[in-house]
């Protein structure tokens, strides 16, 4: 089990952290900017970031702040994919720690900035042509499949094996980037908004009176209930 796939409903975590700021340290805004640049340049996708987060040590996942996970994921990805060298990151980090002005100022790529701003305005929709009609319609009882994802999933773990009712059929089809050990991604398919009864998901642990939990679920994960 990857704990990160089963976050919804974990017991005993204590009070919510009600921090309303987006960034709590200046470096967090910078690493977010690097992330957006990597997205806009096609260097990585959300899926790559999510794979990193979903494969973390679960204790680190819960104790590292949000952007600490991003920083770790971005660095590991850039090294694994040959964009940067681990040793040069180490050396540069040490240089910066030892003397704040150690970073040479070079112009970089102007074209890159344009592409990135363009991405922010265009977005990157996973919508694809629908190959065949959706199998379910509004009001159908559906059940999420029981399986253990290989490393990345878009089916929240608490839904596995649980039945709900289709509340909405989204138009079109959306690319599902989940892959098994063979590396092939599931690909495009219909997506449904499914209403689940919280008591069916969490039994007596669900808050009394909690009536409606909705999740967006790919047809890939559903069977008739």
């Amino acid at each position: 089990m990857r704990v990160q796939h089963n976050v919804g409903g974990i017991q005993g975590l204590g009070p919510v952290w009600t921090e309303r700021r987006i960034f709590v340290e200046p470096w967090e805004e910078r690493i977010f900017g690097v992330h957006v640049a990597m997205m806009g340049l096609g260097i990585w996708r959300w899926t790559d970031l999510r794979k990193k987060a979903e494969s973390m040590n679960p204790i680190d996942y819960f104790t590292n702040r949000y952007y600490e996970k991003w920083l770790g994921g971005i660095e590991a990805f850039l090294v694994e994919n040959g964009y940067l060298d681990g040793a040069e990151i180490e050396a540069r980090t040490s240089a910066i720690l030892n003397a704040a002005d150690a970073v040479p100022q070079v112009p970089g790529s102007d074209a890159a900035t344009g592409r990135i701003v363009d991405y922010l305005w265009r977005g990157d929709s996973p919508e694809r042509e629908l190959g065949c009609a959706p199998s379910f319609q509004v009001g159908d009882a559906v059940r999420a499949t029981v399986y253990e994802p290989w490393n990345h999933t878009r089916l929240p773990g608490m839904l596995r094996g649980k039945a709900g009712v289709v509340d909405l059929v989204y138009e079109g089809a959306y690319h599902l980037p989940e892959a098994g050990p063979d590396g092939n991604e599931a690909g495009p398919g219909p997506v449904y908004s499914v209403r689940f009864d919280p008591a069916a998901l969490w039994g007596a642990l669900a808050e009394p009176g909690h009536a409606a939990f909705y999740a967006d679920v790919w047809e890939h994960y559903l069977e008739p209930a």
Partner: protein
Amino acid sequence: MTANHEHYHHPETERHSAARTKAIESLLLEKGIIGSDTVDKVITFFETDMGPLNGAKVVARAWTEPQFREWLLRDSTAAVASMGFFGAEGEHIRVVANEPGVHHLIVCTLCSCYPWPLLGLPPYWFKDPVYRARAAIEPRAVLREFGLDIPAGTEIRVWDSSAQIRYMVLPERPAGTAGMSMAELVPLVTPGSMQGIELARPVAST
């Protein structure tokens, strides 16, 4: 020995993370992968073009134009695009409307999906695993921690953004705002009211 709530700010760790971030940015720059202004441009973009003021304008318009409200709830993506709000993480938008007896709350249990063009970037609470774990199973208790008491007779609907659709809550229009202009209404639409952790701000009693 409790792990939450301090969220681990150790000056040494932060100093190291800052240096590491700067190292990565400066190396990407030197290799010509990004431009010297790239990260600044991204940050400015979110300060000027993608923030919760956009969502507030959508809400205020929905409060004042019944036809727009109907369009917004039927085809959220097109309706908000008509106001110029679109882009990354706003390719597919769904607006859910609070009404008497129904309160909506958004969450992303798998990560931190959020409607950037309408609300900007998500606040820390939305990204923290504790909110994500608890909003799903005990929304009423979570809302109380944000200071919002939802009456027992009101159904709370929790929306988990587990695919590519990004959610925004259309809060109820506060009492005593009849005849107000959009410009007067927009300040009442707090970010929290569009996430579901609070109601729209009541009109100041003068």
